[in-house]
């Protein structure tokens, strides 16, 4: 290595490690703006995401078991669930179609739960028979209250074929 090369190297190292005042302030400015932007993004996300929701409770009282005849499928459009009284016992299905969220309806003449939006069909156990729905209708947690009413937690999905016997 010649002396000229050595000198060049030192100059380069000096230039890459020492930043001048202008660069320092530029980096400080850009850095603090970046931090401010990231903070704004976080605050923005938090602001847009509501902390308290005035939505109805997921737990609903569906009344006395006797009001549901044996072998019947009953839709409650307000709470969007089916209460089904079968030979094995009572159970509840989420009536919201698993395709795109439309409200399904019970069609007794064809013994089928059908969705009006895109034609998905389910049997009374929630199993898909036809249409674009990707999943079966989910079974919802059901129990008897102390007063003997059927209670359903719409937010709690359970494995199928679990019945409430009265």
């Amino acid at each position, binding site marked *: 290595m010649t002396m000229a090369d050595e000198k060049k190297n030192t100059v380069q190292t000096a230039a890459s490690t020492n930043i001048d005042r202008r660069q320092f302030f530029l980096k400080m400015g850009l850095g603090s703006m970046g931090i401010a932007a990231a903070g704004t993004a976080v605050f923005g*996300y938090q602001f*847009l*995401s*509501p902390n308290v*929701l*005035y*939505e109805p409770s997921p737990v609903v009282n569906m009344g006395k078991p006797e009001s549901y005849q044996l072998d019947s499928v009953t839709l409650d459009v307000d709470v969007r669930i089916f209460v089904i009284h079968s030979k094995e016992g009572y159970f509840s299905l989420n009536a919201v179609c698993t*395709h*795109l*969220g*439309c409200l399904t309806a019970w069609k007794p003449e064809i013994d089928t739960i059908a969705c009006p*939006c895109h034609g998905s069909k389910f049997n009374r156990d929630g199993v898909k028979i036809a249409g674009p729905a990707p999943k079966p209708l989910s079974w919802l947690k059901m129990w008897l209250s102390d007063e003997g009413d059927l209670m359903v937690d719409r937010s709690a999905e359970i494995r199928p074929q679990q019945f409430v016997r009265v």
Partner: protein
Amino acid sequence: MKVNVTRYFEDLQKTKVWRSVFRGGTGTSTLRKSMAIQQNVFLHLLSTKVRKRMIEFNATWYLGTLTLGTFGLLVATGILLMLYYHPSVPQAYTDTKDLQFVVSSGQFLRNLHRWSAHAMVFLVFAHMFRVFYRGAYRPPREFNWVIGVVLLLVTLLLSYTGYLLPWDQLAFWAITVGSNIASAVPVMGDKVRFLMLGGHFVNANALLRFYVLHCMILPLTAIFFVAIHFWRIRKDGGLYARNSEPDVLMTTASTRPMTEPTI
């Protein structure tokens, strides 16, 4: 009589007040006429000079201008509809019915708003097809095509957000379905839906969010991009008229890497 009016107008143009408002452009010289365009805040987005061929019906079928026209109608009727509409769950549907059956001229304004919205979506697509098949998206206008795609998305979002506002069955289920489609976004789909609706269901928060998007955020976004869209027409050499393009542009349009900017 006619001569008098013309003379009064000319005299008016010479007054100090007029001159303070309209800086350039009195007189008939080309320079003065150009300055009248260039020095006006509204008109400066447009080219100061255009070829006649460019503004003939045949060149563009006026589809872009018609789209702007429907947008103007939508803003005007939309502002009037806002005077009777409350974006709240108990009132939204009854207000819509009031507009339809009770408010004087309400039905006319609402229908005008709705039909203009349909027309605008149709015209945006027609405009884009026209630009596409004429090859008017090619350099130097390629970035203006991108802005056009943004404007297409804004138009569709305006339609979608406006769909919910009548708060009837059609609105409710359309937005239920639409927001569930949004939740198909990988990984953060459910979060996207939650932020969009401001909750887990299409409810009061969703109605208010869609209202704010429909009446404030999206129209302002549209105006912003329309301004750039128009300004780019001028910067990219004016409206596209095939016959008036330079020969070099016609032969090498697809391979040419850069274009000299024009005024």
